[in-house]
Protein backbone atom coordinates (compact mmCIF):
# COMPACT_ATOMS: atom_id res chain seq x y z
CA UNK A 1 0.00 0.00 0.00
CA UNK A 2 1.36 3.39 -0.90
CA UNK A 3 1.34 5.75 2.02
CA UNK A 4 1.63 8.94 0.03
CA UNK A 5 -1.22 9.22 -2.36
CA UNK A 6 -0.59 12.93 -2.94
CA UNK A 7 1.87 13.18 -5.79
CA UNK A 8 2.58 16.75 -6.71
CA UNK A 9 3.90 16.37 -10.23
CA UNK A 10 1.11 15.05 -12.38
CA UNK A 11 2.14 13.82 -15.77
CA UNK A 12 0.64 15.23 -18.93
CA UNK A 13 -1.33 12.06 -19.58
CA UNK A 14 -2.73 12.17 -16.06
CA UNK A 15 -3.95 15.72 -16.65
CA UNK A 16 -5.63 14.53 -19.83
CA UNK A 17 -7.22 11.66 -17.97
CA UNK A 18 -8.63 13.96 -15.27
CA UNK A 19 -9.88 16.33 -17.93
CA UNK A 20 -11.67 13.46 -19.66
CA UNK A 21 -13.27 12.40 -16.37
CA UNK A 22 -14.55 15.93 -15.80
CA UNK A 23 -15.84 16.14 -19.35
CA UNK A 24 -17.69 12.84 -19.03
CA UNK A 25 -19.28 13.97 -15.79
CA UNK A 26 -20.33 17.24 -17.35
CA UNK A 27 -21.87 15.43 -20.33
CA UNK A 28 -23.87 13.13 -18.09
CA UNK A 29 -25.32 16.02 -16.09
CA UNK A 30 -25.94 18.00 -19.25
CA UNK A 31 -27.95 15.21 -20.87
CA UNK A 32 -29.92 14.61 -17.71
CA UNK A 33 -31.07 18.23 -17.73
CA UNK A 34 -31.47 18.21 -21.52
CA UNK A 35 -33.90 15.28 -21.41
CA UNK A 36 -35.97 16.98 -18.70
CA UNK A 37 -36.10 20.28 -20.57
CA UNK A 38 -37.00 18.51 -23.84
CA UNK A 39 -39.71 16.50 -22.13
CA UNK A 40 -41.32 19.53 -20.49
CA UNK A 41 -40.88 21.72 -23.58
CA UNK A 42 -42.35 19.14 -25.95
CA UNK A 43 -45.24 18.48 -23.61
CA UNK A 44 -46.00 22.22 -23.37
CA UNK A 45 -45.63 22.70 -27.10
CA UNK A 46 -47.84 19.76 -28.09
CA UNK A 47 -50.58 20.70 -25.68
CA UNK A 48 -50.42 24.42 -26.55
CA UNK A 49 -50.97 23.55 -30.23
CA UNK A 50 -53.73 21.09 -29.32
CA UNK A 51 -51.84 18.18 -30.88
CA UNK A 52 -52.31 16.58 -27.49
CA UNK A 53 -55.57 17.48 -25.82
CA UNK A 54 -54.70 19.31 -22.58
CA UNK A 55 -57.99 18.08 -21.13
CA UNK A 56 -56.56 14.55 -21.03
CA UNK A 57 -52.84 15.28 -20.87
CA UNK A 58 -52.74 18.52 -18.87
CA UNK A 59 -49.60 20.61 -19.48
CA UNK A 60 -46.62 21.94 -17.53
CA UNK A 61 -48.07 25.49 -17.41
CA UNK A 62 -51.41 24.14 -16.17
CA UNK A 63 -49.61 22.13 -13.52
CA UNK A 64 -47.75 25.22 -12.34
CA UNK A 65 -51.03 27.15 -12.25
CA UNK A 66 -52.81 24.39 -10.29
CA UNK A 67 -49.88 24.22 -7.94
CA UNK A 68 -50.16 27.97 -7.37
CA UNK A 69 -53.91 27.71 -6.78
CA UNK A 70 -53.48 24.89 -4.31
CA UNK A 71 -50.78 26.76 -2.41
CA UNK A 72 -52.95 29.88 -2.38
CA UNK A 73 -55.92 27.95 -1.08
CA UNK A 74 -53.59 26.50 1.57
CA UNK A 75 -54.65 22.92 0.81
CA UNK A 76 -51.48 21.65 -0.90
CA UNK A 77 -49.40 21.39 2.28
CA UNK A 78 -52.26 19.79 4.11
CA UNK A 79 -52.67 17.07 1.49
CA UNK A 80 -48.94 16.56 1.10
CA UNK A 81 -48.45 16.40 4.84
CA UNK A 82 -51.25 13.84 5.30
CA UNK A 83 -49.66 11.50 2.77
CA UNK A 84 -46.13 12.13 3.97
CA UNK A 85 -47.16 11.41 7.55
CA UNK A 86 -48.87 8.13 6.60
CA UNK A 87 -45.90 7.11 4.51
CA UNK A 88 -43.32 7.88 7.18
CA UNK A 89 -45.22 6.13 9.93
CA UNK A 90 -45.82 3.09 7.72
CA UNK A 91 -42.18 3.10 6.61
CA UNK A 92 -40.88 3.28 10.18
CA UNK A 93 -43.19 0.64 11.62
CA UNK A 94 -42.56 -1.76 8.74
CA UNK A 95 -38.79 -1.32 8.81
CA UNK A 96 -38.39 -1.64 12.58
CA UNK A 97 -40.87 -4.48 12.96
CA UNK A 98 -39.60 -6.33 9.88
CA UNK A 99 -36.03 -6.02 11.15
CA UNK A 100 -36.94 -7.34 14.60
CA UNK A 101 -38.87 -10.27 13.13
CA UNK A 102 -35.85 -11.08 10.93
CA UNK A 103 -33.63 -11.13 14.03
CA UNK A 104 -36.03 -13.46 15.86
CA UNK A 105 -36.18 -15.80 12.87
CA UNK A 106 -32.37 -15.76 12.58
CA UNK A 107 -32.09 -16.57 16.27
CA UNK A 108 -34.02 -19.82 16.10
CA UNK A 109 -33.59 -22.05 13.08
CA UNK A 110 -36.54 -24.28 13.91
CA UNK A 111 -38.92 -21.34 14.24
CA UNK A 112 -37.54 -20.03 10.96
CA UNK A 113 -38.25 -23.31 9.18
CA UNK A 114 -41.79 -23.39 10.60
CA UNK A 115 -42.57 -19.89 9.34
CA UNK A 116 -40.79 -20.16 5.98
CA UNK A 117 -43.80 -21.22 3.87
CA UNK A 118 -46.04 -18.60 5.48
CA UNK A 119 -43.60 -15.84 4.67
CA UNK A 120 -43.37 -17.01 1.07
CA UNK A 121 -47.16 -17.02 0.71
CA UNK A 122 -47.45 -13.59 2.33
CA UNK A 123 -44.78 -12.25 0.05
CA UNK A 124 -46.49 -13.41 -3.13
CA UNK A 125 -49.95 -12.26 -2.01
CA UNK A 126 -50.93 -8.91 -3.58
CA UNK A 127 -51.51 -6.92 -0.39
CA UNK A 128 -54.18 -4.74 -2.05
CA UNK A 129 -56.43 -7.80 -1.92
CA UNK A 130 -56.58 -7.33 1.83
CA UNK A 131 -57.94 -3.76 1.41
CA UNK A 132 -61.61 -4.42 2.26
CA UNK A 133 -60.64 -6.61 5.23
CA UNK A 134 -58.27 -3.96 6.56
CA UNK A 135 -61.06 -1.36 6.50
CA UNK A 136 -63.34 -3.76 8.37
CA UNK A 137 -60.66 -4.46 10.97
CA UNK A 138 -59.27 -1.03 11.76
CA UNK A 139 -61.90 1.22 10.23
CA UNK A 140 -61.60 3.60 7.32
CA UNK A 141 -59.02 6.34 7.81
CA UNK A 142 -55.40 6.90 8.60
CA UNK A 143 -54.88 3.65 10.48
CA UNK A 144 -56.10 1.62 7.49
CA UNK A 145 -53.75 3.49 5.18
CA UNK A 146 -50.79 3.04 7.51
CA UNK A 147 -51.59 -0.64 7.90
CA UNK A 148 -51.67 -1.07 4.12
CA UNK A 149 -48.30 0.62 3.95
CA UNK A 150 -46.88 -1.63 6.68
CA UNK A 151 -48.20 -4.79 5.03
CA UNK A 152 -46.59 -3.91 1.74
CA UNK A 153 -43.16 -3.18 3.26
CA UNK A 154 -42.82 -5.58 6.14
CA UNK A 155 -42.56 -8.91 4.34
CA UNK A 156 -39.84 -7.77 1.99
CA UNK A 157 -37.96 -6.20 4.92
CA UNK A 158 -38.06 -9.43 6.89
CA UNK A 159 -37.11 -11.58 3.90
CA UNK A 160 -34.20 -9.43 2.78
CA UNK A 161 -32.79 -8.92 6.24
CA UNK A 162 -33.16 -12.57 7.16
CA UNK A 163 -31.27 -13.70 4.09
CA UNK A 164 -28.56 -11.13 4.88
CA UNK A 165 -28.28 -12.39 8.45
CA UNK A 166 -28.09 -16.02 7.35
CA UNK A 167 -25.41 -15.33 4.77
CA UNK A 168 -23.15 -13.70 7.36
CA UNK A 169 -19.59 -15.01 6.96
CA UNK A 170 -19.33 -18.33 8.83
CA UNK A 171 -15.62 -17.77 9.34
CA UNK A 172 -16.20 -14.53 11.22
CA UNK A 173 -18.76 -16.24 13.44
CA UNK A 174 -16.27 -19.04 14.08
CA UNK A 175 -13.66 -16.46 15.03
CA UNK A 176 -16.06 -14.91 17.54
CA UNK A 177 -16.90 -18.35 18.91
CA UNK A 178 -13.21 -19.09 19.32
CA UNK A 179 -13.06 -15.88 21.37
CA UNK A 180 -15.79 -17.23 23.62
CA UNK A 181 -18.55 -14.96 22.28
CA UNK A 182 -22.18 -15.74 23.12
CA UNK A 183 -25.04 -15.52 20.63
CA UNK A 184 -26.02 -11.95 21.54
CA UNK A 185 -22.43 -10.84 21.02
CA UNK A 186 -22.31 -12.65 17.68
CA UNK A 187 -25.51 -10.85 16.69
CA UNK A 188 -24.38 -7.37 17.67
CA UNK A 189 -20.69 -7.57 16.82
CA UNK A 190 -20.95 -9.39 13.52
CA UNK A 191 -24.35 -10.31 12.08
CA UNK A 192 -25.99 -6.87 12.35
CA UNK A 193 -23.04 -4.71 11.30
CA UNK A 194 -22.11 -6.97 8.39
CA UNK A 195 -25.68 -6.72 7.08
CA UNK A 196 -25.62 -2.90 6.92
CA UNK A 197 -25.33 -2.75 3.11
CA UNK A 198 -28.44 -4.93 2.77
CA UNK A 199 -30.21 -2.80 5.37
CA UNK A 200 -29.57 0.33 3.33
CA UNK A 201 -30.87 -1.33 0.18
CA UNK A 202 -33.96 -2.43 2.13
CA UNK A 203 -34.46 1.19 3.19
CA UNK A 204 -34.26 2.24 -0.43
CA UNK A 205 -36.79 -0.37 -1.50
CA UNK A 206 -39.06 0.60 1.39
CA UNK A 207 -39.00 4.27 0.42
CA UNK A 208 -40.63 3.29 -2.87
CA UNK A 209 -42.90 0.63 -1.41
CA UNK A 210 -44.20 2.77 1.45
CA UNK A 211 -45.38 5.40 -1.03
CA UNK A 212 -47.13 2.66 -3.00
CA UNK A 213 -48.76 1.57 0.27
CA UNK A 214 -49.98 4.98 1.34
CA UNK A 215 -51.28 5.96 -2.11
CA UNK A 216 -53.04 2.60 -2.48
CA UNK A 217 -54.48 3.06 0.98
CA UNK A 218 -55.75 6.50 0.05
CA UNK A 219 -57.34 5.07 -3.10
CA UNK A 220 -59.25 2.69 -0.85
CA UNK A 221 -60.29 5.11 1.84
CA UNK A 222 -59.34 8.73 2.45
CA UNK A 223 -60.60 12.24 3.00
CA UNK A 224 -57.30 13.96 2.30
CA UNK A 225 -53.85 13.31 0.87
CA UNK A 226 -52.15 13.22 -2.51
CA UNK A 227 -53.74 9.87 -3.35
CA UNK A 228 -57.09 11.39 -2.49
CA UNK A 229 -56.38 14.34 -4.82
CA UNK A 230 -55.48 11.94 -7.62
CA UNK A 231 -58.65 9.86 -7.24
CA UNK A 232 -60.79 12.97 -6.81
CA UNK A 233 -59.21 14.68 -9.83
CA UNK A 234 -59.74 11.54 -11.90
CA UNK A 235 -63.40 11.33 -10.94
CA UNK A 236 -64.20 14.92 -11.89
CA UNK A 237 -61.94 14.80 -14.98
CA UNK A 238 -59.54 17.40 -13.62
CA UNK A 239 -56.35 15.91 -15.03
CA UNK A 240 -54.44 19.04 -13.97
CA UNK A 241 -55.08 18.10 -10.38
CA UNK A 242 -54.03 14.48 -10.97
CA UNK A 243 -50.79 15.57 -12.63
CA UNK A 244 -50.03 18.19 -9.99
CA UNK A 245 -50.53 15.71 -7.16
CA UNK A 246 -48.34 13.19 -9.00
CA UNK A 247 -45.65 15.83 -9.44
CA UNK A 248 -45.63 16.65 -5.72
CA UNK A 249 -45.54 12.93 -4.99
CA UNK A 250 -42.46 12.56 -7.19
CA UNK A 251 -40.71 15.38 -5.34
CA UNK A 252 -41.47 13.97 -1.89
CA UNK A 253 -40.49 10.42 -2.82
CA UNK A 254 -37.23 11.66 -4.29
CA UNK A 255 -36.52 13.69 -1.16
CA UNK A 256 -37.00 10.64 1.01
CA UNK A 257 -34.76 8.57 -1.25
CA UNK A 258 -32.17 11.34 -1.10
CA UNK A 259 -32.16 11.22 2.71
CA UNK A 260 -31.54 7.47 2.61
CA UNK A 261 -28.69 7.92 0.16
CA UNK A 262 -27.14 10.49 2.52
CA UNK A 263 -27.25 7.81 5.19
CA UNK A 264 -25.57 5.43 2.78
CA UNK A 265 -22.76 7.89 2.06
CA UNK A 266 -22.20 8.38 5.76
CA UNK A 267 -22.00 4.63 6.29
CA UNK A 268 -19.59 4.09 3.44
CA UNK A 269 -17.10 6.61 4.84
Amino acid at each position, binding site marked *: *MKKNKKVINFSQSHKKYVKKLKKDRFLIIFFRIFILVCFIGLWELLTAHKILDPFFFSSPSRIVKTLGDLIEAGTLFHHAWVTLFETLIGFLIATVLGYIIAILLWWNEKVRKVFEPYIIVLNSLPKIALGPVIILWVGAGTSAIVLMCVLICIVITTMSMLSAFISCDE*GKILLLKSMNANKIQILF*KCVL*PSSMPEFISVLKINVGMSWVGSIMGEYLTSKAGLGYLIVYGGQIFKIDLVMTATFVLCLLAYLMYFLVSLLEKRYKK
Partner: protein
Amino acid sequence: MEKLLEFRNVNYFYQTKNDEIFALNNINFDVGKEEFVSLVGPSGCGKTTILSLTAGLLKPSSGEVILDGEKKIDTKKIGYMFQRDMLFEWRTVWKNITLGLELQKPKDIDKKLEFAEQLLKKYNLESFKNRKPRSLSGGMRQRVALIRTLVLEPKLLLLDEPFSALDYQTRLTLCDDVSEILKNEKKTALLVTHDISEAISLSNKIIVLSKRPAKVKDEIHLSLSGKTPLKKREDKEFGKYFDLIWSELTNEKEQKSD
Protein backbone atom coordinates in the same frame (compact mmCIF):
# COMPACT_ATOMS: atom_id res chain seq x y z
CA MET B 1 9.48 -30.34 28.58
CA GLU B 2 6.25 -29.31 30.23
CA LYS B 3 3.21 -30.26 28.20
CA LEU B 4 0.62 -27.69 27.22
CA LEU B 5 -1.60 -29.78 24.98
CA GLU B 6 -2.19 -33.52 24.96
CA PHE B 7 -4.33 -35.63 22.65
CA ARG B 8 -5.08 -39.00 24.25
CA ASN B 9 -6.67 -41.72 22.06
CA VAL B 10 -8.90 -39.19 20.35
CA ASN B 11 -11.50 -40.46 17.90
CA TYR B 12 -13.88 -38.22 16.01
CA PHE B 13 -16.91 -38.91 13.81
CA TYR B 14 -18.67 -36.31 11.71
CA GLN B 15 -22.36 -36.99 11.50
CA THR B 16 -24.46 -36.05 8.50
CA LYS B 17 -27.95 -37.10 7.46
CA ASN B 18 -26.87 -39.99 5.27
CA ASP B 19 -23.46 -40.76 6.60
CA GLU B 20 -21.11 -40.93 9.49
CA ILE B 21 -17.56 -39.96 8.60
CA PHE B 22 -14.74 -41.41 10.61
CA ALA B 23 -12.36 -38.43 10.71
CA LEU B 24 -9.82 -39.09 13.45
CA ASN B 25 -8.56 -42.53 14.40
CA ASN B 26 -6.92 -42.81 17.79
CA ILE B 27 -4.86 -39.65 17.69
CA ASN B 28 -2.07 -39.24 20.24
CA PHE B 29 0.40 -36.39 20.44
CA ASP B 30 1.67 -33.65 22.75
CA VAL B 31 2.64 -30.06 22.34
CA GLY B 32 5.19 -28.78 24.85
CA LYS B 33 5.32 -25.25 26.20
CA GLU B 34 6.90 -22.74 23.80
CA GLU B 35 7.10 -25.42 21.13
CA PHE B 36 6.10 -24.86 17.52
CA VAL B 37 4.35 -27.94 16.19
CA SER B 38 3.02 -28.44 12.66
CA LEU B 39 0.43 -30.85 11.39
CA VAL B 40 0.83 -32.01 7.80
CA GLY B 41 -1.23 -34.52 5.91
CA PRO B 42 -3.28 -35.09 2.76
CA SER B 43 -6.18 -32.69 2.06
CA GLY B 44 -9.31 -33.41 4.00
CA CYS B 45 -7.56 -35.75 6.42
CA GLY B 46 -8.86 -33.93 9.48
CA LYS B 47 -6.14 -31.41 10.34
CA THR B 48 -8.61 -28.60 10.93
CA THR B 49 -10.74 -30.98 12.98
CA ILE B 50 -7.80 -31.35 15.35
CA LEU B 51 -7.62 -27.57 15.71
CA SER B 52 -11.38 -27.32 16.29
CA LEU B 53 -11.15 -29.98 18.99
CA THR B 54 -8.29 -28.11 20.61
CA ALA B 55 -10.24 -24.84 20.52
CA GLY B 56 -13.22 -26.53 22.16
CA LEU B 57 -15.40 -25.82 19.11
CA LEU B 58 -15.90 -29.59 18.77
CA LYS B 59 -15.96 -32.34 21.39
CA PRO B 60 -14.12 -35.63 20.76
CA SER B 61 -16.33 -38.67 20.12
CA SER B 62 -14.03 -40.55 22.45
CA GLY B 63 -10.66 -39.96 24.07
CA GLU B 64 -9.35 -36.84 25.74
CA VAL B 65 -8.03 -33.47 24.78
CA ILE B 66 -6.11 -31.99 27.70
CA LEU B 67 -5.16 -28.33 27.64
CA ASP B 68 -2.85 -27.00 30.33
CA GLY B 69 -3.62 -29.99 32.53
CA GLU B 70 -7.40 -29.59 32.26
CA LYS B 71 -9.89 -31.74 30.39
CA LYS B 72 -12.40 -28.93 30.10
CA ILE B 73 -11.04 -26.61 27.48
CA ASP B 74 -10.80 -23.00 28.57
CA THR B 75 -11.22 -21.08 25.31
CA LYS B 76 -9.52 -18.07 26.85
CA LYS B 77 -6.24 -19.99 26.74
CA ILE B 78 -6.57 -20.41 22.98
CA GLY B 79 -5.94 -17.99 20.16
CA TYR B 80 -7.24 -19.12 16.77
CA MET B 81 -5.88 -17.71 13.54
CA PHE B 82 -7.60 -18.68 10.33
CA GLN B 83 -6.69 -19.07 6.69
CA ARG B 84 -8.50 -15.83 5.89
CA ASP B 85 -7.76 -12.89 8.16
CA MET B 86 -11.44 -12.48 9.13
CA LEU B 87 -10.98 -8.77 9.77
CA PHE B 88 -14.26 -6.93 10.23
CA GLU B 89 -14.40 -4.44 7.37
CA TRP B 90 -16.61 -2.01 9.27
CA ARG B 91 -14.16 -1.71 12.14
CA THR B 92 -10.89 0.17 12.20
CA VAL B 93 -7.62 -1.72 12.67
CA TRP B 94 -7.63 -0.77 16.34
CA LYS B 95 -11.23 -1.86 16.81
CA ASN B 96 -10.40 -5.16 15.11
CA ILE B 97 -7.45 -5.75 17.37
CA THR B 98 -9.43 -5.05 20.52
CA LEU B 99 -12.44 -7.15 19.44
CA GLY B 100 -11.57 -10.03 21.77
CA LEU B 101 -11.12 -7.66 24.71
CA GLU B 102 -14.52 -6.15 23.99
CA LEU B 103 -16.06 -9.61 24.11
CA GLN B 104 -14.23 -11.00 27.10
CA LYS B 105 -13.91 -7.82 29.18
CA PRO B 106 -10.91 -9.10 31.19
CA LYS B 107 -10.14 -7.52 34.55
CA ASP B 108 -6.73 -6.30 33.45
CA ILE B 109 -8.14 -4.66 30.32
CA ASP B 110 -6.04 -1.50 30.68
CA LYS B 111 -2.87 -3.53 30.73
CA LYS B 112 -4.00 -5.47 27.67
CA LEU B 113 -4.90 -2.31 25.77
CA GLU B 114 -1.44 -1.01 26.51
CA PHE B 115 -0.02 -4.30 25.26
CA ALA B 116 -2.06 -3.92 22.07
CA GLU B 117 -0.56 -0.45 21.55
CA GLN B 118 2.91 -1.88 22.01
CA LEU B 119 2.32 -4.67 19.52
CA LEU B 120 0.99 -2.23 16.94
CA LYS B 121 4.06 -0.08 17.34
CA LYS B 122 6.45 -3.02 17.35
CA TYR B 123 5.07 -4.51 14.15
CA ASN B 124 4.82 -1.25 12.21
CA LEU B 125 1.08 -0.85 12.11
CA GLU B 126 0.69 2.15 14.36
CA SER B 127 0.06 4.60 11.54
CA PHE B 128 -2.79 2.41 10.33
CA LYS B 129 -4.48 2.27 13.71
CA ASN B 130 -7.54 4.26 12.68
CA ARG B 131 -7.76 2.96 9.13
CA LYS B 132 -10.26 0.44 7.87
CA PRO B 133 -8.80 -2.96 6.86
CA ARG B 134 -9.51 -2.38 3.15
CA SER B 135 -6.58 0.04 2.98
CA LEU B 136 -4.14 -2.66 4.15
CA SER B 137 -2.14 -5.15 2.09
CA GLY B 138 -2.63 -8.90 2.51
CA GLY B 139 0.47 -9.30 4.66
CA MET B 140 -0.49 -6.38 6.89
CA ARG B 141 -3.99 -7.76 7.30
CA GLN B 142 -2.60 -11.08 8.51
CA ARG B 143 -0.32 -9.24 10.93
CA VAL B 144 -3.35 -7.40 12.30
CA ALA B 145 -5.13 -10.75 12.64
CA LEU B 146 -2.12 -12.12 14.51
CA ILE B 147 -2.02 -9.15 16.87
CA ARG B 148 -5.78 -9.51 17.43
CA THR B 149 -5.03 -13.05 18.57
CA LEU B 150 -1.98 -12.15 20.66
CA VAL B 151 -3.68 -9.29 22.53
CA LEU B 152 -5.76 -11.82 24.44
CA GLU B 153 -2.50 -13.40 25.60
CA PRO B 154 -3.48 -16.97 24.81
CA LYS B 155 -1.22 -19.78 25.97
CA LEU B 156 -1.64 -21.72 22.76
CA LEU B 157 -1.95 -20.34 19.24
CA LEU B 158 -3.79 -22.37 16.63
CA LEU B 159 -2.75 -21.44 13.11
CA ASP B 160 -4.94 -22.83 10.34
CA GLU B 161 -2.94 -22.21 7.16
CA PRO B 162 -2.64 -18.52 7.95
CA PHE B 163 -0.22 -17.91 5.09
CA SER B 164 -1.87 -19.84 2.29
CA ALA B 165 -3.90 -16.96 0.88
CA LEU B 166 -0.81 -14.79 0.41
CA ASP B 167 1.60 -14.45 -2.48
CA TYR B 168 4.91 -16.28 -2.14
CA GLN B 169 7.10 -13.33 -1.20
CA THR B 170 4.68 -11.97 1.41
CA ARG B 171 4.36 -15.46 2.71
CA LEU B 172 8.07 -15.88 3.36
CA THR B 173 8.34 -12.49 5.04
CA LEU B 174 5.25 -13.05 7.14
CA CYS B 175 6.59 -16.47 8.19
CA ASP B 176 9.68 -14.72 9.54
CA ASP B 177 7.53 -12.10 11.23
CA VAL B 178 5.26 -14.63 12.86
CA SER B 179 8.13 -16.78 14.00
CA GLU B 180 9.83 -13.73 15.52
CA ILE B 181 6.64 -12.50 17.18
CA LEU B 182 5.93 -15.92 18.68
CA LYS B 183 9.47 -16.23 19.98
CA ASN B 184 9.41 -12.73 21.46
CA GLU B 185 6.09 -13.31 23.16
CA LYS B 186 7.08 -16.84 24.24
CA LYS B 187 4.06 -18.50 22.67
CA THR B 188 3.26 -22.10 21.88
CA ALA B 189 1.83 -22.76 18.44
CA LEU B 190 0.08 -25.54 16.57
CA LEU B 191 0.13 -24.98 12.80
CA VAL B 192 -1.85 -26.71 10.10
CA THR B 193 -0.32 -26.41 6.64
CA HIS B 194 -0.16 -27.97 3.21
CA ASP B 195 3.24 -26.48 2.62
CA ILE B 196 5.94 -28.93 3.74
CA SER B 197 8.80 -26.43 3.54
CA GLU B 198 6.82 -23.93 5.57
CA ALA B 199 6.29 -26.58 8.24
CA ILE B 200 9.99 -27.51 8.29
CA SER B 201 11.18 -23.92 8.46
CA LEU B 202 8.89 -22.96 11.33
CA SER B 203 8.58 -26.02 13.54
CA ASN B 204 10.38 -27.87 16.31
CA LYS B 205 8.19 -30.85 15.60
CA ILE B 206 6.13 -32.06 12.68
CA ILE B 207 3.28 -34.51 13.01
CA VAL B 208 2.55 -36.37 9.78
CA LEU B 209 -1.03 -37.56 9.47
CA SER B 210 -2.36 -40.32 7.24
CA LYS B 211 -5.40 -39.98 4.99
CA ARG B 212 -8.85 -40.13 6.53
CA PRO B 213 -9.51 -41.52 9.09
CA ALA B 214 -6.35 -39.73 10.19
CA LYS B 215 -3.77 -41.54 12.27
CA VAL B 216 -0.46 -40.14 13.44
CA LYS B 217 1.92 -41.61 10.91
CA ASP B 218 5.14 -40.08 12.10
CA GLU B 219 6.45 -37.53 14.55
CA ILE B 220 9.56 -35.76 13.33
CA HIS B 221 11.70 -33.67 15.68
CA LEU B 222 13.69 -31.03 13.88
CA SER B 223 16.81 -29.15 14.76
CA LEU B 224 17.88 -26.83 12.00
CA SER B 225 20.47 -24.13 12.31
CA GLY B 226 19.43 -20.63 11.35
CA LYS B 227 17.68 -18.01 13.39
CA THR B 228 14.78 -17.27 11.10
CA PRO B 229 12.60 -19.61 9.05
CA LEU B 230 14.12 -18.16 5.90
CA LYS B 231 17.64 -18.91 7.10
CA LYS B 232 16.63 -22.40 8.14
CA ARG B 233 15.77 -23.12 4.55
CA GLU B 234 19.51 -22.88 3.80
CA ASP B 235 20.41 -25.70 6.21
CA LYS B 236 21.69 -28.87 4.53
CA GLU B 237 19.27 -31.01 6.51
CA PHE B 238 16.30 -29.08 5.13
CA GLY B 239 16.18 -31.10 1.93
CA LYS B 240 16.42 -34.40 3.80
CA TYR B 241 13.46 -33.53 5.99
CA PHE B 242 11.54 -32.42 2.95
CA ASP B 243 12.19 -35.71 1.13
CA LEU B 244 11.24 -37.72 4.20
CA ILE B 245 7.90 -35.98 4.66
CA TRP B 246 7.24 -35.88 0.93
CA SER B 247 7.74 -39.63 0.63
CA GLU B 248 5.46 -40.25 3.58
CA LEU B 249 2.74 -38.13 2.03
CA THR B 250 3.07 -39.46 -1.53
CA ASN B 251 3.14 -42.96 -0.14
CA GLU B 252 -0.28 -42.07 1.27
CA LYS B 253 -1.53 -41.00 -2.11
CA GLU B 254 -0.39 -44.20 -3.80
CA GLN B 255 -2.11 -46.26 -1.19
CA LYS B 256 -5.20 -44.17 -1.75
CA SER B 257 -5.24 -44.86 -5.48
CA ASP B 258 -4.89 -48.61 -4.96
